[in-house]
């Protein structure tokens, strides 16, 4: 029937609506019968109907409605067909059937749905109830129709309310004696009851957010207290570091405030720390020291040394950065990491520190120092102190002798090294012993004689001549080694056999030679073609001469076999929609 109707009519909106109406019936929970009745219509399935069907599937607790609505469905269907008088009627039908599918259909909604008769009405009721559940706010007066939040739905609701009036009279739905303004009776009662149930789910969601927002507040509270206490301490400490070149590390200041470093013990060490600062070559040391304190060496007694060490390290890093030593180890392997570290490590450290810090004493001391440092213009000192304090706070519990500190520093350094790339590890390990010795020196003589500071510096510089002297070779070596080691790992993977470390180094040497040869060949090929830019054709020629690309095996085949998809797409021209080829040939 529907088919005939539709075929007769032109594909106007009216027919579409009719189709929707026809198809909607089946989608309502009474799907079973509707499907039978609407088998003819199902093929018509417009997107509306499909969606509605899916929606109805989601709705729950519709059973009582279904039983009633099934009969109604047939009615509606027939009605729909007959009603093709005006679009308005069609729309009304749609509205009647559409709202059924509600996002949230609590089973409680089902209860109010009674009356087998007005299927539409029942649906409306259930839908309004469900809709209202979803929107307890809308519950109020006008909106009968539950369900969609759109204003359009409100209109539907109004209409539904009219129907509902009739329904309510006939149906026991209007539960309760609550018979509010026409149309709202069932809905209102439902909604009111439902709203309560739905009110709660909203809360947890909203509560979750505040939890995250609360986090930073806790930190701030500590800083103020620390600040007040540290004022005295900082004044003493600031005097000595004054001679040192202040390094701008603004981000660290804030970080320091939050941390709770030791106040007194660090003061004595601060001068010593400063002395150790001016060695840009100690950048590695810095990074190492930073790691050490993060890993948690601190002891109260030893905290000064550690913080000194850390401070020195941090100061060095800061100095290096300030002085613009991109070549320093810190910059090389971790330039990206270091810079954000300074800026954000402090924050991270703060977090860590805060978490780890348990004793109030440490916090106060650290905070005092941290705040004191923050005040000082010399950010590096602050940073160092903060670091030291952090380390101290972390290690508060395991108090030990200075020796322990040194030992801790070394294992920590060792542990921290794995974090860095292999190339750096070696370099860091070297400064580790010197730093520990330097720390020992600091320990014994708090007064930082320049000679003392120079002593640790000298051995360090001696051990890392490359770093101190030239940034060029350092840069060349580290990332270059990293790249080669990247390929060396692939070698060990391809070999599928255990390998010695020496063999890996040999592989790296071979790779070095290979790269040189490769560049020379490409240079020759490009020059032969009269170009100064190496192109893909040169590469292909090279591979052909190497015997990788043959008549049987083309370059594209190799690309597909060995490169990941993203690179393949960049290399092999492929046709896309719109008559385009990428990459352009």
């Amino acid at each position: 029937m529907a088919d005939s109707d539709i075929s007769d009519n032109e594909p106007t909106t009216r027919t579409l609506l009719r189709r929707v109406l026809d198809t909607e019936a089946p989608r309502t929970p009474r799907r079973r019968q509707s499907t039978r009745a609407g088998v003819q219509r199902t093929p018509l399935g417009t997107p509306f109907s499909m969606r509605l069907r899916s929606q109805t599937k989601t709705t729950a607790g519709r059973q009582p409605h279904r039983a009633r609505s099934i009969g109604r469905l047939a009615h509606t269907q027939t009605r729909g067909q007959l009603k093709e008088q005006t679009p308005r009627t069609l729309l009304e039908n749609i509205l009647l059937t559409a709202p059924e599918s509600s996002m949230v259909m609590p089973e409680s909604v089902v209860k109010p749905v009674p009356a087998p008769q007005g299927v539409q009405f029942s649906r409306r009721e259930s839908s309004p109830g469900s809709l209202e559940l979803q929107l307890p706010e809308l519950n109020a007066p006008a909106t009968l129709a539950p369900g969609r939040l759109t204003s359009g739905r409100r209109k539907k609701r109004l209409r539904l309310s009219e129907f509902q009036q009739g329904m309510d009279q006939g149906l026991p739905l209007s539960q309760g004696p609550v018979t509010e303004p026409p149309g709202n009776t069932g809905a209102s009662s439902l909604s009111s009851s439902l709203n309560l149930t739905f009110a709660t789910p909203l809360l947890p969601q909203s509560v979750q957010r505040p939890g995250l927002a609360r986090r930073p507040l806790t930190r701030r509270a500590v800083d103020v207290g620390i600040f007040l206490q540290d004022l005295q301490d900082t004044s003493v400490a600031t005097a000595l570091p004054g001679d040192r070149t202040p390094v701008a590390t603004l981000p660290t200041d804030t970080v320091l405030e939050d941390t709770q470093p030791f106040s007194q013990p660090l003061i004595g060490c601060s001068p010593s720390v400063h002395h150790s600062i001016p060695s840009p070559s100690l950048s590695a040391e810095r990074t190492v020291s930073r790691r050490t304190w993060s890993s948690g060496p601190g002891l109260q007694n030893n905290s000064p040394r550690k913080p000194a060490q850390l401070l020195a390290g941090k100061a060095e890093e800061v100095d290096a950065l300030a002085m613009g030593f991109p070549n320093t180890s810190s910059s090389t392997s971790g330039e990206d990491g270091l810079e954000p570290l300074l800026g954000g490590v402090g924050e991270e450290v703060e977090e860590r520190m805060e978490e780890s810090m348990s004793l109030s004493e440490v916090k106060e001391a650290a905070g005092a120092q941290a705040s004191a440092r923050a005040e000082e213009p010399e950010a590096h000192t602050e940073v160092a102190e903060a670091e030291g304090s952090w380390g101290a706070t972390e290690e508060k519990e395991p108090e030990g002798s200075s020796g322990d500190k040194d030992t801790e520093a070394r294992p920590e350094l060792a542990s921290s090294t794995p974090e860095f790339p292999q190339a750096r590890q070696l370099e860091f390990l070297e400064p580790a012993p010197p730093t520990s010795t330097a720390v020992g020196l600091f320990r014994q003589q708090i007064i930082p004689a320049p000679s003392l500071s120079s002593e640790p510096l000298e051995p360090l510089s001696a051990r890392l001549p490359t770093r101190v002297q030239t940034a060029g070779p350092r840069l060349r070596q580290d990332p270059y080694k990293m790249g080669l080691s990247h390929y060396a790992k692939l070698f060990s993977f391809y070999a599928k056999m255990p390998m010695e470390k020496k063999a890996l180094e040999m592989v790296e040497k071979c790779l070095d030679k290979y790269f040189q040869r490769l560049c020379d060949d490409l240079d020759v090929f490009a020059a032969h073609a009269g170009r100064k830019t190496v192109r893909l054709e040169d590469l292909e020629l090279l591979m052909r001469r190497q015997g990788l690309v043959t008549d049987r095996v083309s370059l594209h085949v190799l690309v597909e076999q060995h490169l990941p998809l993203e690179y393949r797409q960049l290399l092999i021209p492929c046709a896309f929609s719109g008559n385009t080829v990428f990459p352009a040939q």
Partner: protein
Amino acid sequence: MAVAATISQRKRIKRKAPRGFLKRVFKRQKPHLRLEASCDLLVHLNCLLFIRRLAEEARTDACKNKCGVIKDQHVLAAAKVMLKKSRG
């Protein structure tokens, strides 16, 4: 484009090519030359194939000597052969 769309979906590439490293190496060696856009990917492919062949060669060398571990002399011998082959 379709390419951009697909790439954005999957940002993590396994076995990434160290494009920056390759470009830097080439620049160091031949500062007067320039590399084209996707040439470094082909260079990376070349390296992969070279290393693959080198590893195979080293493995056969080690197996010939009935060694369960690849030693540097195996690698050295294999490299000699391979560098000769990849003379271009």
